[in-house]
């Protein structure tokens, strides 16, 4: 007979670990690139290219009747056609039966959730790629870090505002009205700007920046919003567009699309909404050991008005 104190050295728990009551969070980046785009729909059975058309405004030159009875010259109406190709994206996870049999968690449920997250993240990156590929950006030069482009400055932001206002772009967000709360300031109706989180420290140093916590009202603000500068409200994401080694000095260049309403479009496909699916083991595997989860969605994207979107190339100060 052994004598002494019974402790965990001689009486170990039957199970060496326990499962915490909650799963830890799956990381997800800020989804900032889709909400500013207009949503359109493409019908089924009539091809994969969607055409969006805009009639350009008539010239305001001339037009006065001189009393001679001669009519003014008729003007040919101009229509601009913007086309976008529907594309389908998919992701799949194949699960062996022993995973579902032995895992403590309900993996099929969790994996389905992961696929749902993938759809939203993939859509966001596809819209980011549209903005980074098909828009004219202007290098920031007012930041003073000695690079081309420079870090962001108020003068550079004001220049983009000048461009958008000069092209009759309309702001996307309504003003946040002043309140009596100490330390707050109203924000004007604003265009939106989408930036990498790497730029956030530089945003804080821009002259006249109003950080989100100093808005007079926090109701309805998206968590991705970072600050307001001039006529722009900035939203940040760790997946914001960047181009490695592309500055004059070989530093990373960050592209910041800045735009108003109807500058870009996201087109969804009728009869093909986002799909989360499951294929049972007897379909996937000849011995019914592997099952499959999948996600699919269709999307087309386009810059619908280049006059209403611009943006900055910037580097960072540090």
């Amino acid at each position, binding site marked *: 007979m052994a004598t002494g104190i019974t402790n965990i050295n001689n009486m170990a728990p039957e199970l060496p670990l326990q499962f915490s009551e909650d799963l830890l969070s799956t990381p997800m980046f800020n989804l900032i690139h889709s909400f500013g785009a207009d949503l359109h729909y493409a019908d089924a059975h009539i091809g994969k290219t969607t055409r969006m058309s805009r009639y350009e405004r008539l010239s305001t030159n001339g037009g006065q009747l001189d009393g001679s009875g001669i009519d003014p010259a008729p003007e040919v109406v101009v229509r*601009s*056609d913007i086309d976008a190709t529907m594309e389908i994206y998919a992701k799949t996870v194949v699960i062996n039966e022993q995973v579902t049999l032995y895992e403590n968690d309900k993996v099929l449920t969790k994996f389905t959730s992961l696929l749902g997250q993938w759809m939203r993240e993939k859509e966001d990156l596809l819209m980011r790629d549209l903005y980074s590929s098909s828009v*004219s950006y202007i290098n920031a030069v007012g930041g003073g870090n000695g690079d081309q482009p420079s870090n962001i400055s108020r003068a550079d932001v004001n220049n983009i505002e000048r461009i958008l206002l000069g092209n009759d772009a309309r702001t996307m967000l309504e003003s946040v009205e002043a309140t009596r709360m100490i330390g707050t300031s109203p924000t004007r109706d604003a265009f939106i700007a989408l930036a990498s989180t790497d730029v956030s420290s530089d945003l804080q140093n821009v002259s006249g920046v109003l950080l989100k916590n100093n808005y007079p009202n926090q109701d309805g603000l998206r968590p991705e919003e970072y600050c307001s500068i001039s006529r722009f409200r900035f939203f940040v994401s760790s997946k914001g567009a960047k181009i490695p080694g592309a500055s004059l000095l070989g530093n990373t260049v960050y592209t910041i699309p800045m735009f108003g309403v109807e500058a870009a479009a996201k087109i969804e496909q009728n009869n093909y909404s986002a799909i989360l699916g499951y294929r049972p083991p007897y379909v996937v595997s000849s011995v019914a050991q592997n099952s499959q989860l999948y996600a699919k969605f269709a999307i087309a994207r386009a810059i619908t008005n280049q*006059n209403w979107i611009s943006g900055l190339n910037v580097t960072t100060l540090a």
Partner: protein
Amino acid sequence: MAFTILDGGSFVSDAGSKDIILPSSADYFKFTNVTQMAASGSTCVAGEWFGPKFLTGQTAANDGIRWRKAGSHAILIDTFATSTATNGFTYITESPVVEAQAANAITAITAASPAVFSQTNTYAAGDIIRIYGTTGMLQYGGIDIQISTVTGSGYTAIGLRAAGLTAGTAGFTRRISRYNAVDPEYMYVTEITKGSTTLVRTSIDPTLYYVVGMKVRFSVPSSFGMIQLDGLTGTITALSSADYTMTVDIDSSAFTTFAFPLTTLSPTARLFATLAPAGASTQYNPNTMVQTGYNFTLQPFHTGQFTPFMRLGGGGAGNATGAENDVINWLAYKLES
């Protein structure tokens, strides 16, 4: 089955690089040059690539195992990255696409139009490269250019007009993919000739992304002089693949002259002048039966660069894509485990 052949195909080489899209990715890739297989000499006849699943045994960027002829019936095996460096396999998985290659040093850029680069390189004609870290020719730091007349010691950039500028004495390049993540894409404007219609030169062949009838909007910072063109949208009436030019229906006769800002103004002169896609003016003339705006390959916004893809490097018979008109068979494999 542990090793599955996913896909395969064949193409006739133009001696330049060849991108092969791989929707389900690949773990092992091989090609055979069936034309050179029958030849004598020391040309490349086959290549093998091992992907990330092979861990420390995976193939480095622009490398791979090379099978070369050593006479009419013998084979010599080495790698593409031998002392006489040639172009092998580069596997690219994400966009925007900057290939995983080391920065390559430039030793000189001539102040000429077109500019001529001096650089030890393994590029092929038609490749698109990004210039950065320039010394001397500061105003071109950060621009993307397409190259031609490539030798191992230099190349020409048709779209880069540098006459009158300060010559470049140093800098770096990286090769990027031919297509951006989304096309049609913005392009750098490097020269504009004024007239009743406007002749615009771009740094890359515009016929890769644009067709006649498409509209483009110009963004021209004041540092380039021709401020009247800034914000204007024009319709393309002609394109030249040889000269990297497009003609647009904008009367620029009375505009101020377009010029790149001087090096002495860098880095505070605002860059770059660009153009971006602004749709099309869809037309059909029943008399001439000419139609514009119905090109559904280039005109609609679409994914430019499908990923993942395998780039087989070009540059001649010792490289992955072999000599011009060589027939190349390829196979992509996937490990199931």
